């Protein structure tokens, strides 16, 4: 992207500025805590303690992080193509139907490791399909992808409630969800990995195999974006559509493929929710993870490593936030929604706010580091 700003050393660009933005977001969140009459430092301490203090907390943190890695990668892939996929929420939700259909068909017949690959395919297929129409409309008919994906989130919510209530719900059941999935569709837990580090026995955390799937996907996304021809095309297209056009890159192809991959990744989030945790397809199974993916991708600078770190941070907020609401009744889990909004604001929309100051600072300490030729990042 052509920013009207001079270059900074890489570590400042990818480390310092995001950290400053994050810090400001948390300071503002701290003010909100102050506003409801609690001590923000104590709140932060409880939060971190709740997320990492015990094995149980760590397992939950990583369980939530799994969701956010998937949706964060989804947003990032689209972002590299210069597309803003706001529809991860809907894609994940509809993908839940794909996973559900696979699981309902197989869970009584085969063991989980046979169901798993089919479920991945189902999630990817349904998620990608839900992203396809907005992608096609953007590529072929020029309708703004942000608006269409928002609309598709809304349509997904209505569609899924209809499907769950009127088609998949067993007659006898009160709650709107499918029947409970049996062993063939339940992913094994990974809590033993955390127990290896000598924590107490973890009873109930739903930390499961899909975390590994998320890591594999993060690696594949890195491979795709930085080591393949398609990835190069995606990045070129995102950097400058005009340049991509002159280079003979098909806009339609890149837009549609990037969105299909994005939708598929967002869709896999539903595996964690359905096969890893609830063992049924239920209402609002994406639970906002699609939107957190946006914060995660912005914070992680659309790089898989950054996304994993940012996901763990948000996983921590989710888990720690739950603990926090026990200790401080004035602060419910909705605090995370505020933090999420502030992170999106400061790491996304206002990402350049502190840049001029930091540049001035760098220029006064070491003029070479912001000089025209010296952009390698030695010095400073």
């Amino acid at each position: 992207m052509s920013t009207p700003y001079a270059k900074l050393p890489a570590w400042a660009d990818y480390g310092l500025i995001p950290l400053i933005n994050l810090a400001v977001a948390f300071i503002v969140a701290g003010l909100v805590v102050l506003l409801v009459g609690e001590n923000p430092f104590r709140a932060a301490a409880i939060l971190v303690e709740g997320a990492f203090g015990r094995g149980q907390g760590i397992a939950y943190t990583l369980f939530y992080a799994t969701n956010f890695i998937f949706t964060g990668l989804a947003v990032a892939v689209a972002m590299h193509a210069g597309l803003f996929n706001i529809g991860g929420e809907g894609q994940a939700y509809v993908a839940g139907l794909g996973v559900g259909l696979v699981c309902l068909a197989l869970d009584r017949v085969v063991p989980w490791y046979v169901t798993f690959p089919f479920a991945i395919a189902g999630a990817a297929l349904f998620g990608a399909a839900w992203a396809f129409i907005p992608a096609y409309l953007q590529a072929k008919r020029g309708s703004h992808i942000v608006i269409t994906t928002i609309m598709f989130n809304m349509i997904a919510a209505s569609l899924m409630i209809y499907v769950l209530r009127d088609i998949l719900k067993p007659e006898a059941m009160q709650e709107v969800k499918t029947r409970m999935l049996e062993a063939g569709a339940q992913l094994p837990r990974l809590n033993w990995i955390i127990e290896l580090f000598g924590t107490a026995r973890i009873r109930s955390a739903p930390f499961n195999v899909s975390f590994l799937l998320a890591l594999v996907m993060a690696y594949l996304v890195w491979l795709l974006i930085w080591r393949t021809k398609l990835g190069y095309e995606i990045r070129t297209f995102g950097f400058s559509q005009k340049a991509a056009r002159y280079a003979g890159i098909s806009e339609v192809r890149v837009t549609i493929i990037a969105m299909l991959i994005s939708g598929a990744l967002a869709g896999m989030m539903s595996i964690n929710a359905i096969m890893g945790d609830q063992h049924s397809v239920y209402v609002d199974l994406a639970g906002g993870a699609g939107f957190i993916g946006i914060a995660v991708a912005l914070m992680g600078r659309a790089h898989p490593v950054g996304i994993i770190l940012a996901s763990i941070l948000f996983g921590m907020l989710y888990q720690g936030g739950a603990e926090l609401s026990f200790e401080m009744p004035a602060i419910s889990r909705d605090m995370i929604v505020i933090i999420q909004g502030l992170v999106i604001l400061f790491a996304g929309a206002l990402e350049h706010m502190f840049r001029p100051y930091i540049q001035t600072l760098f220029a006064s300490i070491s003029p070479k580091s912001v000089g025209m030729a010296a952009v390698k990042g030695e010095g400073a």
Partner: protein
Amino acid sequence: MSFFDVIIQTLDSTIRLSVPLLLACLAGLYSERSGIFDIGLEGKMLAAAFAGAAAASVFHSAWIGLGIAILVSVSLALVHGFASITHRGNQIVSGLAINFVAAGSTIILGQAWFQQGGRTPALAPNERFEAITLPGADAIREVPIIGPIYSELISGHSLLVYVAFLAVPFTWWVLFRTRFGLRLRAVGENPAAVDTAGISVAWLRYRAVICTGVLTAIAGAYLSMVQSGGFVKDMTAGKGYIALAALIFAKWRPVNAMFACLLFGFLDALAIRLQGAPLPIIGKVPVQLMQALPYILTVILLAGFIGKAIPPRAGGVPYVKER
């Protein structure tokens, strides 16, 4: 109940349901016409609904409530302006951020201040904008056809309803008959030309987002102080997004916006009235389909199958002054 009464009642609830959409839609119109995309209508409406109801119940005055609602909503609009005008940030990202901040903080602050599970205290009659009976409404109630239309449909709404519908011609007048409106439209199409003429692009856009803030505030106040007697968490429930859809549906024109909002309001009213009862000819329509219809229609419109919706040309693009 006769068929005529059913129609009157459905239309009456159509009006009630389309008012918040209409106000939010016109709000978005000012901003987007000036070249600032705003998907944060939802958040501003929600924050205003909370601020309005909270202030009204604390100060025992609907007007103070409305004032505070405007204050809060305009502040959020200015944050959006600060990010997208001054710092040339991504407008979609900024709008989204405002939606989350509003969604979270209304619940947190509501719970901390009132301890009613995110609700504000129920508002007394003088803390709400109550229904106004237009002159002569009671006198002609018994007259067939015209009576019910006047006394049920046109009279008997809250002040804010009339404000909403008067805002339509007013917006049209501002946009197409004043100098400010001409410049507003110009800055959304070609900011460089406006800049060349010696008019500040940033100041114009800031004024546009302030207009947006005021109108979303009234929309929010309507939800919490007219439609229901207090704030309930997440009470906008996607209305900001429907308003956005209506704005596109209306092709960024005020009078079209009114019809789009009335259409979407009518669909909502119909869905409530039918509650899954079968329709003649079509048969049983799932409630969910009715709810999704505004979004589906908008997507079809965006796809270019019902005319073409062309947004303001400079929309979403931060303006960088030539150096």
